[in-house]
């Protein structure tokens, strides 16, 4: 998809604008049908993307509690955020920990599992299904289950630690471990990433490995010199998807800790949600300002990754699309 985005940009750059009046009657008819077919999306993008995008920008300069009309306060929210809201800084730090940790976990573990499954393993379909299974379980149910897995007194994880002779950890009661607990939980959702990697690995022609073997490359050299370079487009895509998703982590945190203990698991979107829907009166203006900062952060991350991708992403035989 990231590739499609780049290709789309390229296509735009290279094309001269087609003007309506230059079109032949046949082409006009075709254009009318095309526009007719995409009408639902045009309405949708105006109502559910452009309108909220502009409105939340404007609301971020106001005090707004839904009941009364918004009141203009200028840059107050943005100033408050950076000078007078220690929880903003803290939630940003917690989110950074989650994004860094979970993206590395997904990429490394997802890639490792895909490599294991790409070794002509028997019952490939069965293993793939087993590893994918937790990814289809509704997150509410997973949260309820994992609350017990991570239970301090008798949970599954502490039982495991006990079995290998380690002390129990008070996961959600200990500010040092609460965020780590969420990262541990995220290890069981690498299914989607793994499946995408596996499909990429299966697309690498066998001859490349054969050639490397003839040249005397061992397993690790083949991994470093053949597999990883050829997999960079897939790694690129997975990094992008996972970063955008991880910045918005919310549901499991809302259900399992609500930000406790001592705001050690207060993530960015939870902070934003609390201002809009938990606190009384609702602070929708401040919440909108928070949303816009999040948008800018995600945008900058995406832009940097896309811009640097040419340096480390290799496309085989000029195949883009």
């Amino acid at each position, binding site marked *: 998809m990231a590739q499609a985005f780049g290709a789309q940009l390229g296509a735009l750059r290279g094309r001269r604008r087609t003007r309506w009046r230059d079109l032949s009657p046949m082409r006009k008819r075709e254009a009318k049908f095309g526009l007719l077919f995409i009408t639902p999306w045009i309405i949708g993008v105006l109502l559910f993307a452009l309108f909220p995008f502009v409105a939340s920008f404007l609301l971020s300069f106001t005090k707004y509690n839904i009941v009364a009309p918004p009141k203009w306060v200028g840059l107050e929210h943005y100033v408050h955020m950076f000078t007078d809201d220690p929880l903003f800084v803290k939630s940003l730090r917690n989110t950074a920990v989650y994004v860094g940790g979970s993206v590395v976990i997904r990429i490394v573990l997802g890639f490792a599992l895909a490599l294991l499954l790409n070794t002509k393993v028997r019952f490939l379909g069965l293993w793939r299904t087993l590893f994918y299974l937790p990814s289809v*379980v509704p*997150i*509410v149910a997973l949260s309820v289950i994992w609350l017990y897995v991570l239970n301090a007194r008798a949970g599954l994880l502490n039982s495991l630690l006990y079995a290998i002779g380690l002390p129990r950890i008070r996961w959600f009661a200990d500010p040092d471990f609460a965020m780590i607990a969420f990262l541990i939980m995220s290890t069981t959702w690498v299914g989607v990433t793994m499946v995408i990697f596996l499909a990429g690995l299966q697309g690498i022609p066998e001859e490349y490995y054969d050639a490397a073997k003839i040249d005397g490359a061992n397993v690790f050299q083949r991994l470093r010199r053949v597999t990883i370079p050829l997999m960079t487009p897939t790694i690129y895509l997975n990094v992008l998807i996972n970063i955008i998703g991880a910045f918005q982590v919310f549901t499991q945190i809302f259900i399992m800790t609500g930000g406790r203990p001592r705001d050690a698991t207060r993530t960015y979107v939870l902070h934003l949600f609390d201002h809009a829907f938990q606190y009384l009166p609702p602070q929708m203006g401040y919440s909108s300002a928070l949303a816009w900062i999040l948008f800018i952060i995600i945008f900058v991350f995406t832009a940097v990754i896309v811009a640097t991708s040419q340096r480390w992403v290799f496309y085989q035989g000029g195949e883009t699309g």
Partner: protein
Amino acid sequence: MAAATTTRSFLDSDSFVRVSRFVSRALLYLLLIVMSLWFLAPLFWMFMSSFMPLDQVGVFPVQWIPRVWQPENYTDALQFWNFGITFRNTMFVTIISLIGDIGSCTLVAYGFARFRFPFRDALFLILLATLMLPFAVRLIPVYAAYEAIGWIDTFYPLIVPNFFGNAFYIFICRQFFLGIPQDLLDAAKIDGASEVRIFTQVMIPLAKPAIVVIAILSFQNSWNDFLGPLIYLKDPDLHTLAIGLYKFTSLPGQGGIYNQQMAASTLMVMPVLIVFFLFQKQFIQGANISGLKG
């Protein structure tokens, strides 16, 4: 030198190769088994503990087999949680959303894939860009708008947007339409079929694999949705399964009744698992398409 030669011949010996291959295979399967246990143990425990007596749930270290099987955990849980209503609500929202998603996304994808019109590529770029827009940015204005038109405490906010196209599903479907040979369409056109007939009678049947993938993604999306129902549905009679389960586990006094919580979780998870096992291939394809087709 001599040492090097011996190791070499040892490495080349047939039995060594066979033994090392056996060991590495055994290690591989051991690793796969350990990882699947790590992935599945929580779900397995959810199912087992949903039949356990309460005092057995709290035993340390954890126990896996119910001392006595206690199916009444399920009936007890259902006393506090109207499963029937939440299930029906979830089914309703899921099915209508699915119809909306399939209808709108196939139409729009076809428009992008098969017609030339001014600004088409720019519009498609915008479509891809909306995938980056965090839901938090839309949350408040959209909520305020629904509040203003009286849609809070109705299913509309969960259903109506699906009739206006989802960028990701449109992307999937367009990729698929692009792969259908133009000759087929030209033949239909020569036979005098109208654009609408070509779409409904040639393209839709051909696009079945893509539609199944969209249907599964849409099903998962509605069934698992938490934030939407949480903010839009306050009336308990409108709650969906996700909210029902959340409210049930956060009821006062429910904090420690883990066996009933696990029974409730099992009830919510089962339908998804059944659909997953029936359509495994399409689930995997759905994850794949985003990766494969670039």
